[in-house]
């Protein structure tokens, strides 16, 4: 009797388990489509998290909140700017919330760690970040890169510097000592050789450094024509702030991927004046999709959008367009659709390179204005160059995209 009861219980349990395990699959086909927004709201890139979430929310709103008749649900999670936290958040959202698509992350180190989960769980990751590994040695079929390739960024910025300062020859680099900074340094060497610049020194600084005068003293001693900042986020803000205190107006400060428009407000106008900065996005970009985006965003949030919001808006919009083109919300179908389509994005005509999943896109160079030239408090700079030279194929380390 005891045995029979146990067997019955076992069979009932097994049946219940089977039924339960089918629920998420059913929910995935009929319930809301969950899109994760895994970004930092604390840590070095804390400023970006809320802005990314705003961009994603606006894209969903502009799409009517539905895709192929199903509601779209955004899942916002804080990755704290740490790879371990990012991986945990993605894993949790995949297993308990049925997330199959996500934006993540803003930091390369976090995004690359999350990329491993994306390949393993077969979920689509639309990343932003400066590491070339996303579309190089660690490329994956489930990861797409929205931001420009470091080569594209470096080439566009130094091309402009070459034209703007034909007499300047020497460059001193200050480099963040992690994948992002090292990728920029690698291409600084490549592009400097292409354009006839001479690299006369480099210092690597730890991520999250708050004291730069010791490096900057070396820079001032070396008397370079250009200080090239291969660093970003709060690190770059602090470095520029402290360099301005030396009052060295002979050395031009150039940042290929240093401060996006979101962070320019962190510097006082006199610290920003004359900076030459590469930009993934700038609100003044003259495309119909961007004008519409800027108008809607400004109306909703009473401030113009920046890189973080533009990335989220454009990436979510691209995913939704791909779902419509494929008439499916299955990850594999959406990826195939993205690999084949071309769309009018905020940056202009955009597409994905199917060989490495790099977004084929232009890059922008701006020159920061003086306080007197600013028409309004967010009129930080003017676009002085637009260029989209892709990484030379022989330098790309993504040898073969795996099958879906």
């Amino acid at each position, binding site marked *: 009797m005891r045995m029979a009861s146990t067997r019955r219980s076992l069979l009932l349990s097994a049946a219940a388990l089977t039924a339960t395990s089918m629920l998420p699959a059913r929910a995935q086909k009929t319930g809301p489509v969950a899109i994760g927004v895994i970004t930092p*709201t*604390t*840590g070095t890139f*804390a*400023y970006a*998290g*809320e802005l990314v979430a705003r961009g994603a929310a606006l894209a969903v709103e502009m799409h009517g909140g539905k895709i192929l008749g199903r509601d779209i649900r955004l899942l916002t999670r804080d990755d704290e700017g740490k790879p371990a936290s990012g991986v945990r958040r993605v894993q949790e959202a995949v297993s308990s919330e049925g997330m199959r698509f996500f934006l993540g992350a803003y930091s390369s180190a976090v995004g690359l760690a999350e990329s491993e989960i994306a390949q393993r769980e077969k979920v689509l990751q639309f990343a932003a970040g400066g590491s070339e590994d996303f579309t190089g040695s660690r490329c994956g079929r489930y990861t797409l890169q929205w931001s420009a390739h470091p080569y594209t960024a470096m080439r566009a910025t130094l091309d402009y510097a070459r034209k703007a300062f034909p007499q300047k020859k020497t460059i001193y680099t200050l480099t963040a*000592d992690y994948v992002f900074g090292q990728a920029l340094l690698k291409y600084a060497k490549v592009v400097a050789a292409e354009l006839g610049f001479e690299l006369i020194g480099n*210092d*690597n*600084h*730890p991520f*999250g*450094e*708050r*004291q730069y*005068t*010791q*490096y900057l*003293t*070396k820079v*001032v*001693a070396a008397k370079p024509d250009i200080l090239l900042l291969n660093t970003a986020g*709060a690190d770059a*803000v*602090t470095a520029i*702030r*402290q360099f*301005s*205190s*030396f*009052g*060295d107006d002979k050395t031009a400060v150039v940042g290929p991927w240093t401060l996006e428009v*979101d*962070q320019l*407000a*962190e*510097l*006082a106008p*006199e*610290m920003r004046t004359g900076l030459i900065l590469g930009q993934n996005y700038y609100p003044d970009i003259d495309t119909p999709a961007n004008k519409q985006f800027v108008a809607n965003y400004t109306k909703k949030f009473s401030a113009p959008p920046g890189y973080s919001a533009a990335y989220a808006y454009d990436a979510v919009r691209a995913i939704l367009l791909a779902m419509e083109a494929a008439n499916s919300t299955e990850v594999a179908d959406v990826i195939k659709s993205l690999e084949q389509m071309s769309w009018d994005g905020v940056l202009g005509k955009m597409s994905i390179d199917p060989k490495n999943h790099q977004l084929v896109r232009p890059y922008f160079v701006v020159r920061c204005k003086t306080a007197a030239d600013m028409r309004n408090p967010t009129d930080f700079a003017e676009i002085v160059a637009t260029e989209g030279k892709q990484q030379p194929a022989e330098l790309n380390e993504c040898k073969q995209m795996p099958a879906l």
Partner: protein
Amino acid sequence: MLWLISAQLVNGIAIGLVYAVMSFGLSIIKGLLNVPNFAHGALYALGAYICYAVVSLQLPFAIGLAAAFLGAAVAGLLLDRFAIRPVGNGGYLPQLIVLFGAALIIEQLLLIGWGTVGLSYSPPAMLRGALNLGITVVPRYIAFASVFSALVIVLVWLLIERTKFGAYVRAGIERPETTQALGINVELLLSSGMMLGAGLAGLAGGLALPIVGATSTMGGDMLGIAFVVLVIGGLGSLYGSIAAGILVGVVQSLTTIVAPSASTAIVYVLMIGVLLFRPQGLFGER
């Protein structure tokens, strides 16, 4: 090479003096209240924001610094009255937890008040540009900050060593029970010590504003260094943190000559090294 070493030495001393002001406050609070002030970093951030708020009103930077000191001192008093004392009977751990919580509250309030975007302030015109010292070039503001920090340290030293209040403070640190038995109002003494220590953290924040700007999380970065300086100087030593602050600044700065990316880690290596050979710190007593 000699030029570079001299330059980094000068830079290290300058930065070390700012560390020393911060850690000196921590040392006073640790000595008087016998509690490691986990909210010290948040008070440092509070000082930076208060200073920013004052200079944004077009008031002189000097008033900003004074407000940073006073604002953080008042916050220290509130912490003492409403956070540390109510749990004082519970021992060490509740005080730590309460201070940790207070730090989070201050950080969040700064975040709510000023947002996630960091703030910058350029020093007054007379403190902009660089000074050529022959052996090196130093930004004028860094030179000012180091001289000002040294003056503050001397003033606090005079206050502690040459005034009646200072004598009470020293007695309170070294023999708290005897001090109370002599009829000295130890509660008032503790509150004053907390205000002084917290005020120094706020002043360091205001002083650091033109160098590192203001962000709500800036206290966390500085708190780690302040505790390292305190431990290297010796937990029982009031003035050990001053020498240790300069030492940490110099070692950090010199490290960038040979291994720039190790300049953060070296601070902790230095602390471990000191503790291995002198567990009580450089100036502490067993």
